[in-house]
């Protein structure tokens, strides 16, 4: 039984009285004028609030699970931490509303207006935002995995660090949006418009990007591995450090692109030279890696780098700074690798390091092959000073390790192969 009837609620609202923590389940509030009401922590689960006026209402931490809010006016409302799981907000007006950390999992917001709304850290997994207006919306760190955003208007939206794995962005407008380090792995984004968007360090791995527009977009250090790029527009795009294979660019539209690290547009590579320049960037030289070239993708300031399968790096000297994250699926031969403190180096299942030396207080994980046996006679042990040395079940390590004074934390998974000499600190 609800605490108040519809009439009592409307009476309280007219007197500007608070309904904080009220149990209002089963009350029909459709088309009610509740402007400015305080419903903080109230229970409105499953309530019919169709076309209800809730402008500037306080609904923070309210329970609105499965609530029916079709075409409701929630402009400027406070919905921080509100639970809207499964709620129906189709055509609702949420412009300028604060939905930070709200739970909108599985909610329907089709055709809703969310321009200028705050949705930072919101849970929006499987939410339906098809055709919604989200211009200038703040969605940084939001969880939008498997969400539907087909045809959504997201121009100038802030989607930094959002999780959008397998989201649908078909024909969505993301002009000028900020998606720095957003995860769009496996996203369906055919025909999406990323013109002038900031896409630094975005993970587009395996995404469907056919006909997408990246004109003047900043794609530096983004990961486009296995993404489909047929018919993509790349004119004016900044592509330094992009991870992709050269054959992925076979069917793109590009008049010119910017391959410089600075990405200031001062140096233009003509479209006819795009693939060859990209290939040169991939090949780079031994020292180029520290500046992010070769196949390395730096996705964070402190350095997250990936060396893809099929590439070979010989006789290179590589230095990775403090807390860098390095993943190697390539073949390295006779390379000297220096790891800064707490840098994490992972040799993936396809990775192979032959005749290499790794020095520094980093964390080393081997799932592939490390064969550093040649180095000992030449330059001492093949691995010197690691904090952590972990060999996975598919890992193979042949060589020698000199532990630091604090000793190495070793981990060996059953199935790994080792021919390893271990030495204490000198």
């Amino acid at each position, binding site marked *: 039984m609800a605490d108040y009837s519809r009439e009592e609620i409307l009476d309280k609202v007219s007197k500007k009285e608070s309904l904080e923590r009220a149990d209002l389940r089963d009350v029909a509030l459709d088309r009610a004028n509740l402007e400015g009401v305080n419903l903080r922590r109230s229970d409105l689960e499953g309530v019919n609030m169709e076309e209800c006026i809730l402008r500037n209402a306080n609904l923070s931490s309210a329970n609105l699970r499965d609530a029916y809010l079709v075409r409701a006016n929630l402009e400027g409302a406070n919905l921080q931490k509100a639970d809207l799981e499964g709620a129906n907000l189709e055509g609702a007006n949420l412009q300028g509303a604060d939905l930070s950390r709200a739970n909108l999992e599985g909610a329907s917001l089709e055709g809703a207006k969310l321009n200028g709304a705050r949705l930072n850290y919101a849970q929006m997994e499987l939410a339906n935002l098809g055709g919604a207006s989200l211009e200038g919306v703040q969605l940084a760190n939001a969880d939008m995995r498997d969400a539907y955003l087909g045809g959504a208007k997201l121009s100038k939206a802030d989607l930094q660090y959002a999780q959008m794995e397998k989201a649908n962005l078909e024909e969505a407008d993301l002009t000028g949006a900020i998606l720095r380090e957003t995860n769009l792995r496996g996203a369906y984004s055919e025909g999406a418009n990323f013109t002038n968007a900031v896409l630094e360090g975005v993970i587009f791995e395996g995404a469907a990007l056919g006909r997408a527009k990246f004109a003047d977009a900043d794609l530096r250090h983004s990961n486009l591995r296995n993404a489909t790029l047929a018919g993509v527009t790349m004119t004016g795009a900044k592509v330094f450090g992009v991870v992709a294979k050269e054959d992925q660019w076979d069917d793109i539209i590009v008049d010119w692109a910017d391959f410089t690290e600075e990405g200031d547009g001062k140096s233009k590579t003509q479209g006819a030279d795009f693939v060859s320049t990209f290939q040169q960037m991939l090949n780079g030289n031994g020292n180029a890696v520290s500046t992010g070239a070769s196949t390395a993708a730096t996705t964070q300031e402190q350095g997250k780098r990936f060396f893809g399968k099929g590439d070979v790096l010989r006789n290179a000297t590589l230095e990775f700074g403090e807390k860098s994250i390095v993943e190697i699926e390539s073949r390295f031969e006779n390379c000297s690798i220096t790891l800064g403190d707490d840098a994490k180096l992972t040799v993936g299942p396809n990775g192979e390091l032959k005749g290499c030396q790794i020095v520094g207080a980093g964390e080393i994980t081997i799932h592939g092959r490390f064969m550093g046996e040649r180095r000992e006679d030449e330059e001492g042990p093949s691995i010197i000073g690691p904090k952590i040395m972990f060999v996975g079940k598919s890992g193979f390590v042949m060589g020698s390790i000199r532990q630091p004074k604090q000793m190495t*934390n*070793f981990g*060996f998974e*059953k199935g790994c192969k080792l*021919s390893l000499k*271990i030495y204490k600190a000198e």
Partner: protein
Amino acid sequence: MSDKTVKQTILENGTEIEGAVKSKCAIVVSGQIKGEVSAPTLTVTDTGVLQGKVKATQLSSQGSLAGEIEADSVELSGSVSDNTIIRANTMEVKLSQSSGKLQVSFGNCELQVGDTSDKKQPKVDPVVAANGNGHHPEAKHGK
């Protein structure tokens, strides 16, 4: 009484043995053994010290190992002393999750684990491998 009770030799903490120990049943070492040791299953507890030439099918150690260790499978924590060689088909060392505390501390030692191409296969005493029946399998076939 069922004779399914697992037989094992227990060397308690405070006991030291020097010489050869060969057993058809499992050995649990909480004390100290120096010398040649062979058994199907060897468990070294956190107070145990095993030093010498060791052969086992399964070796699980939380204590201290030193010498030449050969086993089919090794589960390791505790410590491994200087000049130790461990040869095994499989080895498992769990990565310590707590900072400052190591699962295993390794001295100057050598690990030969699994089938590495240019290294010898780990060799396990066939007597030990014969399920503790005491018969040497090669002798059985008259070789």
